[in-house]
Each structure stands twice: as structure tokens, then as C-alpha cells.
């Protein structure tokens, strides 16, 4: 099936860099303590961006996703990211607009 475009699903995990102050995480930590949860040392809040894209192969998909992360999905001044690329499913005719 090589050469046929495939649908890739990616999970982009966006986190504040270590050392960057996280007021939101600190507030959630306080909330957990208020609920009676013991032993909370730290909470940091990030986000997950799920992207579905069509690409010819995994390397191309990963390249494009990295560019997306650098240009829009993350702010490199304060954030870092991890990419998780899911095994692709072959593109079916019913998935296309043509």
C-alpha cells in the first residue's frame, strides 16, 4: 500500500516548560487540597491537541506536525510539546470528497 496517502492521527501534548510559573495549576492544587486530598505536591495544567491529517507517510506527517507545533500550536517561549503519532488507517474512498 506504499505511496497511497493515509490518515494519521496525532496527539500533541502541550505543557508549560519546567520552571515556568503555572497559576492555573497552583489554583487546581489548592482546590484538590481543599477537597481533602493529602499529599498534593504540585499540579501543572497543560492541553492536548488532537490532529487528524492525510499524509503520504509517517515521516512527512511528523514533519508537518512539528511545523504546526512550532508555528501555532505551542509558544516556544513558555511551552514544550510531545508528539504521539497513531498507526494510520488506509484512506478509504468514502473518506474523500471526490
Amino acid at each position, binding site marked *: 500500500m506504499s505511496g497511497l496517502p493515509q490518515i494519521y492521527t496525532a496527539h500533541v501534548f502541550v505543557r508549560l516548560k519546567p520552571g*515556568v*510559573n*503555572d*497559576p*492555573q495549576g*497552583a*489554583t487546581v492544587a489548592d482546590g484538590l487540597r481543599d477537597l481533602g486530598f493529602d499529599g498534593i505536591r504540585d499540579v501543572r495544567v497543560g492541553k492536548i491537541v488532537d490532529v487528524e491529517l492525510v499524509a503520504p507517510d509517517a515521516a512527512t506527517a511528523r514533519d508537518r506536525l512539528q511545523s504546526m507545533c512550532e508555528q*501555532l*500550536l505551542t*509558544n516556544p*517561549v*513558555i511551552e514544550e510539546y510531545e508528539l504521539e503519532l497513531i498507526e494510520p488507517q488506509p484512506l478509504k474512498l468514502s473518506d474523500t470528497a471526490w
Partner: protein
Amino acid sequence: MRAAVIVFPGSNCDTDTHHALSHVMGVPTDLVWHATPSLDGYDLVVLPGGFSYGDYLRTGAMAAQARVMRAVREAADRGVPVLGICNGFQILLEAGLLPGAMLPNACVEFRCEWVHVRVETRRTPFTEATDVGRVLRMPIAHGEGNYVADHETLDALHDNDQVVWRYSDAAGRRTAGANPNGSVGDIAGICNARGNVVGLMPHPERCSETALGGTDGRLLWESVLARVAA
């Protein structure tokens, strides 16, 4: 002299800024839609406050991708004075026209109140006509004004005289209570290396006439108008 106030989906201080420039200061001013490809012919560009694109992803992140931002960059490269107010400041940071980034306020509250800021440099078109150490009283209204930058960037800001305003008390003293959002170094506004691109969290357009409770915002407009006329 002609000024442009950029309008993004979700800008909400655009008409206030237009009013301050056109009706209070008497400057011919256009509201310019974010899809506009060129800002040729404008002597002043203002990115107003608001919640562009609903603050989706990160404050200012989506607006930084708008087509007009290429024109803002070109205008900045030509030396045109560019001012980003509040969300406009956040957009300039996300667009890379100013260094650093914004985090949610350290107090995790939206702060809507009057603050004092101290002028730190006269090298920008917006502070040229005032004095270093002068204290301005202006309103803020933001949830993310907690300015951060890495040590290298902060050193460069200091070395190049790019910190334009710092939060202070009414007497110009930097006290713990004077900083409303936890910004590093009490920074309220900065400029680029050249000095013509400036961002600040307080709203000068909301204090440009007596009816609004203050007129210190006029100093920014008077300063940049004098520069453009010179």
C-alpha cells in the same frame, strides 16, 4: 497623519481607541479589518484590546496569524510607530514582534482597576514627550498580563533600554502591591530593539479625556503625534 486601528474578530476596544484618536486627538483614523493585506499610507498602527478569536489556544495566538500581521510587520520594518494595547500587546508577543510571552495573572483573577506605571525610557515614540520617572495613572482590564521571558531576553531588554513602563505606586515606587499581575520585573510595557514597536497592558484610550476619569493616556498620543509631525 493617518492612523490605523486594527480590528480582529473579538477586538472590543477598537471603537474606544478610534474615538480617542479621531475625536479626542483629532487624528484621521481608520478601523482596518484583519484581512487587509497592506497598511501603506498609515503613520501609526494600533492593535487594540479585546479577546481576539475568543483567546482560543493562547491569548493573541490566532490573531498573530492574521493576514494584516504581515502588513504590521512591514510597517514596523519601515519604522512606523506600532502600539499594542492589552490584547494587542499579547498579539505582538505571539507574532514575535516583541520578545517574551504572557501567563495568566499570578493572582488568577481578572484585574479591572486603575494602576500606576512609571515611565522607564523616552526612546519610544510613545514616551518621547514625557519624562523618565513620570508616573501615569491608567486602567487595566486583563486576566493574562503576567509577562515572562527567559533570563537572556530579560538581560537584553535591560541592556537595550527596552522596558518602557513598570508598575509602581502613585509615588513611582515599585512595591509588591503595585504589580497587579505578577509580571517579571514589574514590567507593564516593552518595546522592540528599534523602539518603534511598543506593547503595554494598561489602556491609554480609556484615560484620554476627563469624562473617563483620567487623561494620562493622552501623553502617549501627544508624544507619537509630535514624533510623526516632526
